[in-house]
């Protein structure tokens, strides 16, 4: 009879012991979560004030971020969006830290994976931001230089440069995030190579007359300019 009772009580005792170990961990997780969320809220508030002080929204307007957000149907202020992003990133980090306090091997492994992924996520975000700014700058440089020389297709040329740079940046981001790197590399090579071949064929075969006309027009304009423009602007 005693054996039978032990047979019933042992698992309960074991469950109780496990529960005794789990409860402090669980409480630690709740404390971490609570503290993390409070800290995230405080940082969010300070960040909002800092961004307002440095006129981040006006800067975003100038850099074209606001326009980009509107295209994606985001109607909040850029500073508010950045505050939300920072807040939720901190909440996720807090959640992961809290979960690791539970000391459950499977969750620990997941948390480790998450934290080892953060540097990649960070560098991908940097590539996105710098790449976006740089592609905008380069395409506008091309647009203005081409328009100032009277090139009819300046806008088209600038858009093509912008698109190619964005494709390049997206490929770099995917590669950085280790999202199907071999497929991304192959797809990028095919798309980029395809564009170059398409342009070569279009100009070399299909659009040979159009290409000749464009080149002749450009050459004659330059000749014209050399022959006839004699005014001294300064």
């Amino acid at each position: 009879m005693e054996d039978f009772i032990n047979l019933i009580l042992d698992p309960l005792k074991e469950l109780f012991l496990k529960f005794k170990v789990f409860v402090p961990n669980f409480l630690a997780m709740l404390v971490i979560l609570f503290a993390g969320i409070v800290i995230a809220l405080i940082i969010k508030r300070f960040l909002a004030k800092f961004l307002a002080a440095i006129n981040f929204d006006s800067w975003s307007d100038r850099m074209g971020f606001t326009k980009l957000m509107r295209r994606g149907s985001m109607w909040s202020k850029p500073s508010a969006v950045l505050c939300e992003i920072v807040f939720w990133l901190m909440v996720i980090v807090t959640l992961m830290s809290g979960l690791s306090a539970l000391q459950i091997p499977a969750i620990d492994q997941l948390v480790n994976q998450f934290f080892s992924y953060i540097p990649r996520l960070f560098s991908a975000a940097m590539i996105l931001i710098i790449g976006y700014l740089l592609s905008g700058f380069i395409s506008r440089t091309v647009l203005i230089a081409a328009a100032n020389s009277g090139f009819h297709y300046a806008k088209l040329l600038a858009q093509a440069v912008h698109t190619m740079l964005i494709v390049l940046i997206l490929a770099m981001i995917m590669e950085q995030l280790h999202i199907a790197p071999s497929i991304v590399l192959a797809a990028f090579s095919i798309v980029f190579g395809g564009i170059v071949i398409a342009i070569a064929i279009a100009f070399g075969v299909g659009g040979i007359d159009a290409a000749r006309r464009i080149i002749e027009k450009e050459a004659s304009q330059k000749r014209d300019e050399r022959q006839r423009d004699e005014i001294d602007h300064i």
Partner: protein
Amino acid sequence: MREHLERIGNADIVIGIPSFNNARTIGHVVRAIHAGLAKYFPEHKAVIVNSDGGSTDGTMDVVHNSSIEDFNSILLHHRVEPVSKIAFPYSGIPGKGSAFRTIFEIAEVLGAKACAVFDSDLRSITPEWVELLVTPILKGGYDYVSPLYHRHKFDGTITNSIVYPLTRTLYGKRVRQPIGGDFGFSGSLAQFYLTKDVWQTDVARFGIDIWMTTTAIANGFKVTQSFLGAKIHDAKDPGADLSSMLYQVVSATFELMETYAEVWLQVHGTEPVPTFGFEYTVGLEPVNVNTARMLNTFREGIRNLGDIWLDILGAGDFGEIERLGALPDSEFHFPAGLWVQVVYDYALAYHKRKMPVEHLIKSMTPLYIGKTASFILQAKDMGQMEADAEIEKLCQEFENRKHYLVTNWK
């Protein structure tokens, strides 16, 4: 060079010539200056300084070897004081500003009372130019002498349509050629220039001309101008890019608006500055201009840069620009009021840093070309006086609309 300066000791007049690969033309400039000093300032100790940017065509050798051998052929008497010549490569950021800085430093070391600078590619310089730029300093008590040239009515369009009207309206002095390139200034003004912390900025590279003029006016120095006759200089580099030229001149002008905002915001109205020299008409070579190509560039600008212009000018003025683009060449006319709004809106966009400076100002090029084409079409049958009257009307428009700039400048 220090030893050379110590040997010279001091000088009353310092004449500076900045150069970079000007071996073909600098000899004539040096000889004209030499003759001018001998003829008009025989009792003054003078030094000619060639501040060179590292020429590889022997410019400095030409300077050393250029002098008037036979003074009897041009003068009735020889000068009393000899003229010293110094030619050396300047240090610092490559550019005309750095070359000038060295000339100012030499003027300070030698204790010069009067200085003048001349471009090294001048073909029309005469000995009288030295007298006209130096005498108002030595005898008239002026600190800064700006040049006044007779130029073809289609020449100097950046000066005529932007720099002159804007500078005159902002600072209240009608200095006709604020970026002429040949100036006279007092030794004390040269010292004042050296106190300014601009020698590591774009002023060292380009924009020194407008910087010197504006600094002199805005800081209350006595300013005048001298009529020098026609300005003919070496054929410009055919590869020189108009939008780069526009960027250099306009960015320097806009940057000075930032520096002296407290000055120009208080200025109301304008006044003429005294003019020295005997004005006479000079024959100028005809100039060929292709207005059809210019208008094509303007229309391509509307097509391609419309989004940027809309952002800078606003819907009202951009609508007017679009309307101009639809006009046939024969009816094309860029109204003065609209052009003033364009310049002021660009100045405000620069002030508010709406986009990178180079993009901002270079995007103005087709608008400037459109305005220039309009002026050429309008003035093609006009005489010089009538063309000048049109520029005066434009200046009046700048002055009448200054309140818009003042009101929107925060």
